């Protein structure tokens, strides 16, 4: 299989705080990669960097043969009073990333509160690139029948689960080459989690590669091909499907178990 997304030596964060460092990460075409890690360790920041919302500090991101950024370059600037290192960053353009077919469904996004479901779907991105698969305009409703009843409700009146469904549906309308789902089940009831899990299964069946982030290994284990364990700002190990332990074992491994 060919590598679809390749991240090499990526570092970044919110100036001046570095959040993640030297991340190497690859997703194969057609695969579903899980990203697991505790809260506040930088998963979301990493994904925001990949989709171009914030600029990487160094490293490279290649998606579907396109270099999304060029690494920052260090220069020394001399002035009379002090010499200092100047990091010249190459800016990323989120529009370019989205149009290349990398669709990022952000964590708990409020989307557009005053737009109705139908309006939001109407401005969803057009399928990536010429030659992209044609998308059935009814796809959102076949994936999430619930959205159909809420078609004319404003997004701010939707429940958290419905909003998440809407966000995923918008992403699917773009006929993504790679779908990033950042904690789609955050704060949802077990029933809704199950519903979302089956939708994600359906998306996988359609052959769309996914990066799936979650806090629950059990949830990830059923869906992913490989599990990347993210911890303290870098990927500490990559497990194949067979190697994925259950939630308690992995947590004990990471944080030290109760002996």
């Amino acid at each position: 299989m060919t590598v679809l997304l390749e991240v090499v030596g990526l570092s970044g964060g919110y100036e001046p705080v570095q959040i993640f460092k030297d991340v190497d990460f690859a997703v194969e075409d057609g695969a579903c990669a899980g990203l697991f890690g505790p809260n506040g360790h930088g998963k979301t920041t990493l994904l925001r960097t990949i989709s171009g919302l914030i600029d990487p500090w160094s490293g490279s991101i290649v998606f579907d043969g396109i270099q999304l950024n060029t690494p920052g370059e260090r220069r020394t600037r001399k002035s009379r009073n002090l010499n200092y290192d100047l990091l010249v960053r190459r800016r990323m353009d989120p529009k370019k990333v989205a149009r290349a077919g990398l669709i990022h469904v952000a964590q708990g996004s409020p989307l557009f509160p005053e737009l109705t479901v139908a309006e939001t779907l109407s401005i969803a991105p057009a399928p990536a690139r010429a030659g992209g698969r044609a998308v059935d305009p009814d796809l959102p409703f076949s994936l999430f029948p619930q959205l159909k009843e809420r078609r004319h409700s404003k997004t701010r009146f939707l429940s958290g689960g419905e909003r998440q469904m809407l966000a995923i549906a918008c992403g699917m309308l773009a006929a993504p080459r790679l779908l990033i789902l950042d904690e789609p089940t955050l704060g949802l009831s077990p029933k809704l989690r199950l519903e979302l899990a089956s939708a994600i299964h359906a998306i996988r069946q359609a052959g769309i590669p996914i990066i799936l982030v979650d806090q629950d290994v059990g949830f990830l284990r059923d869906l992913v091909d490989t599990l990347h364990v993210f911890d303290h700002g870098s990927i500490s190990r990559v497990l194949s499907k067979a190697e994925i332990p259950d939630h308690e074992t992995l947590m004990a491994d990471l944080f030290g178990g109760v002996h």
Partner: protein
Amino acid sequence: MDLQTLVSILESGAALGILYALMAFGLAIVWTTLGIFNFAHGAFIATGAYLAWQFGNAAGFGLGYWAGAILAVLAMFALGVVVQTLLVRPFERHRDIVLLTVITTLAGASIITNLLNVIWGPRMKQIEPALGGEVTVGLVHVRSQELVMVVVVAATLFAIGWFLLRTPLGRSMRAVAQNREAAQLMGLDVRLLYALTFGLAAAVAGLAGVFIGSIRFMSPTMGDDPLQKALVVVILGGVARFTSSIYAAFAVGIIEAFSTYFVGLYWTPAVLFGLMIAVLIIKPEGLFGRRQRSV
């Protein structure tokens, strides 16, 4: 106070209100979408008036009132895009963008006002009205030009409302205003939408200038006073919705008309600003607002 006086106060208040609605719209849409306050809005109003005079007046290119107005509005759209590119876009990712653009748009206003002064001179001008004379409907006497203004402005506001609610481009503009990041992740061209929003605001300010220039007189600083009033309208109304600043504009227009009659012309700004401060203390999100910004 007899009925005749009451009716004419209400009429002049409503005429002011519809003009304020037009001026406040531009400020409000730039604030909700780009998150900045455009101090060059008053200068846009003046520039629109002078361009319409130049295109339309016999002493300029002599194309007539309507051609002058349309060309001025189109030119103002282009000027808006240029101003946004030069004075706002460079600071887009800056953390102090609000403060920086206060300075840059003030600078822009000052440059534009002085250019108007250099090009057209400080002497008062007036755009020849499209229709002269007066119309009487029942108890109301209106200048025909004011009637023209009311009709055109109402049509413009409806057209803009339709554009924002029904067209994909208008919806995208609202989407960017409501959640910039989600819009970026959807691949919307945020830069382009920002430029178009600013251009739309400038074009609408230009239209307001055309009407002010044909009802009152024109001078390079003619936009300063409307800018203040538009600010009061935006704060009173809140920016939760496109329509909230329209209601507030009528409220301000009618309050101004009554205050001019009872309190006097010179104290009217004090009355309005006093009211604005009271609203800021009691209901900071505006009379018709919600605690979030969106269109």
